[in-house]
């Protein structure tokens, strides 16, 4: 009799109505609340992060106003703080990193997705991903003892000898400076941009390649005419994600940029980024205004990276419908 009732739609409805009184549903409500709390904690965290940074930098904001962003002097003894050189250094070092890193990354991604034989593809992808696992501070140590001296001589000396008439490549060859920071950033963005670019290229349908090849295109023409245009926005997203990483990169940059605090046309000069200033000066900050100015610098840094990341996520999400494709 009951079995028959269950087969009818009414019976099914009756069963669902009875469920809320089952003992298991108390557990359901509790576990739902617990999991929801954990999920929503991400939103709370983001809000708290923003609030805390604004709150801690209120002293600096009220003292300097917009002058903080345009000011070029950073003098703790004179209680004067201007962030312009740090913002300039952050942007310029990241741009150098991208200029040097993007062609190599995209090229490597093309190799991994289009050219490499299958047996080579996985080991190579793995090695490139391992580069991302090298801790920043270890890269920085390598930068101090290997990269920066090499940048000083022969890189900077020969650049000055041959293209020294360009202001970018003129000045004393310290080694430690903007150029070294840019180089180390190019190494750091390489695995990110390569991995994401490879993924978006692999997502291009084979039919696109076949159509191009059927027209008599060479392999390179297939890549440049069909594959790259098809996943263009994904590639742009990958580059911007790399930019986001470069902007906030701290340890490796701090260790090779040389801690100079001025805006200079020469890439050979020691410079500072927002992150490197924070890392090297926070423990020396002795009075409230100093700490507050550093927190405001962190706030600006977060603002820049937030903007860049939101842009990149939107671009990459649009191309790769499944968000799982994109990982850092």
């Amino acid at each position: 009799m009951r079995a028959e009732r269950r087969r009818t739609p009414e019976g099914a409805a009756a069963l669902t109505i009875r469920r809320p009184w089952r003992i298991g549903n108390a557990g359901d409500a509790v576990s739902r609340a617990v999991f929801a709390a954990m999920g929503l904690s991400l939103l709370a965290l983001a809000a708290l992060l923003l609030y805390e940074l604004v709150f801690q930098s209120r002293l600096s904001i009220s003292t300097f106003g917009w002058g903080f962003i345009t000011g070029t002097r950073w003098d703790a003894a004179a209680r004067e703080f201007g962030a312009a050189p740090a913002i300039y250094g952050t942007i310029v070092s990241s741009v150098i990193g991208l200029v040097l890193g993007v062609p190599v990354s995209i090229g490597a991604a093309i190799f991994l997705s289009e050219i490499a034989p299958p047996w080579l593809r996985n080991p190579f992808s793995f090695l490139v991903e391992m580069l991302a696992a090298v801790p920043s501070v270890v890269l920085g140590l390598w930068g101090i003892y290997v990269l920066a001296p090499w940048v000083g001589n022969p890189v900077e000396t020969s650049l000055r000898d041959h293209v020294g008439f360009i202001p970018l490549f003129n000045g004393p060859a310290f080694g430690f400076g903007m150029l070294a920071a840019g180089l180390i950033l190019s190494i750091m963005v390489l695995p990110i941009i390569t991995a994401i670019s490879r993924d978006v290229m692999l997502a291009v349908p084979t039919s696109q390649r076949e159509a191009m090849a059927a027209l008599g295109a060479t392999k390179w023409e297939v890549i440049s005419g069909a594959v790259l245009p098809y996943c263009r926005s994904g590639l742009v997203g990958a580059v911007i994600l790399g930019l986001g990483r470069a902007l906030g990169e701290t340890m490796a940059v701090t260790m090779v940029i040389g801690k100079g605090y001025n805006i200079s046309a020469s890439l050979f000069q020691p410079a500072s980024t927002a992150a490197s200033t924070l890392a090297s000066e926070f423990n020396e900050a002795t009075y409230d205004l100093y700490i507050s100015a550093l927190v405001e610098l962190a706030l600006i840094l977060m603002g820049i990276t937030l903007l860049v990341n939101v842009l990149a996520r939107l671009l990459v999400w649009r191309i790769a419908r499944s968000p799982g494709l994109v990982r850092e």
Partner: protein
Amino acid sequence: MSTSTYQRRRATNALMLSLCSLFAFAAVGVLVLILGFVLAKGISSLNLDFFIHMPAPVGEPGGGVANSIAGSFFTVGLASLIGIPAGIGAGVFLSEYAGHRLGDVIRFTADVLTGVPSIVIGIFVYGLVVLKMGNFSALAAGIALAIIMLPIVARSSEEMLRLVPHSQREAALALGISRWRTILSVVIPVAQRGLVTGALLAVARAAGETAPLIFTALGNRFWSLSITGGPIDALPLRIWRYGIGPYDEWHQQAWAASFVLVFTVFVISLAARLLLRRR
């Protein structure tokens, strides 16, 4: 089509393809270069004292970084205790409960949080924990690292949970098992391996972080394993302080510490990958 056009196209093809291959080899070459240097420099300054002794007084040779290694284990362990359960919970919420709109908002926030520079997280926790408690501590460092781990674990857990076939959930529900029992006893065990992988990758990331520790752990040349009692040391911090310091003994120890750190991080990431591959 003239022969010269054809030859030009073939030449472009050959040039660009070899350039791309060259770039790929260059990328791997940089890795080999860095690892080779860390290996060569690190192994020569590595000995048993390094692991079991405390730092020698400034300027004296010898000594080790036992306090830093212990501190790293302690802070990363603390961070894992907070970050991994919360991250997996958030992943469960995203894959099992959240509606489309809310899910997308949380996912987006998690991705954006992943992109926030770790040094900013450090400053955040400095204001939130260090200033309120009045001193630097392992707890502050653990919280900072946990915040870095949380969005990574949440997103990877969600993806792994989504891979569990719907039929398995339906089978459990059809047996009359409540939803929370289904999640705990069916969905999570099926996705277990993937969840461990995500957690391990987050641990590897946290173990190599330096920037947030500057404002939370501070660093300490003496033995400390107190949760709230005061500054604590960590391996990445020690590498930084020794690396930019003036003494040769310090530099050697920095290389040795780098070797240990890189080795640890690689073993963890490798384990994570192998775990996922073996199906």
